[in-house]
């Protein structure tokens, strides 16, 4: 069965600093990988996704993620964090051809210092 681990439960960065959120997955085949963001009291919004091809994928709001098969990782990055990026971030792996189910990691809560 697939699984996703987000090692950092909380991360605090200063506004303008760079950001990297870690995600490790376990899946027996080529994974479909996703990053979602959840602002307080809101549902989840898709930031970006990786299916195949170029291992560096660009998303919305200036985020990018890099797929590294050798490390089973799909880390999320942003060069310069804005206060509005404070939210909870979820990495997920998708199971194709089975109702397109998603398995989520536990989430990383990002706080941004002024």
């Amino acid at each position: 069965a697939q699984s996703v681990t987000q090692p950092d439960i909380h991360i605090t960065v200063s506004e303008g600093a760079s950001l990297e959120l870690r995600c490790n997955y376990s899946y027996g085949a080529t994974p479909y990988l996703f990053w979602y963001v959840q602002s307080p009291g809101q549902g989840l919004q898709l930031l970006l996704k990786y299916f195949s091809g170029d291992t560096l994928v660009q998303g919305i709001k200036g985020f990018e993620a890099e797929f590294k098969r050798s490390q089973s990782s799909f880390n999320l990055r942003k060069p310069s964090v804005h206060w509005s990026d404070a939210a909870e971030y979820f990495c997920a792996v998708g199971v194709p051809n089975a109702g397109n189910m998603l398995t989520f990691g536990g989430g990383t809560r990002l706080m941004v210092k002024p």
Partner: protein
Amino acid sequence: NAGVTQTPKFRVLKTGQSMTLLCAQDMNHEYMYWYRQDPGMGLRLIHYSVGEGTTAKGEVPDGYNVSRLKKQNFLLGLESAAPSQTSVYFCASSSSTSGMWETQYFGPGTRLLVL
């Protein structure tokens, strides 16, 4: 175009009571999902549906039932609520294209407290 909506937004139940959460989508999506979100555990799939009249179990189905009588609606039922079902419940939907992955769109969530 409202997307995915959930009713109610917040509910308090006593142990043993029953209730139904309603999810509605206006995007003509085939697939619909119910998740629960608990601190530190991310979202876990309860049940899902790949089409009208069909449902299937997800990762944590015990204590819940679902129905998909209409394509646009997906109902989640708790027959006898337990404190362990205190959680935030999210509904999602996606279209289905053979051989392709379609993005899941999420509703705003229902916060349920079972006393």
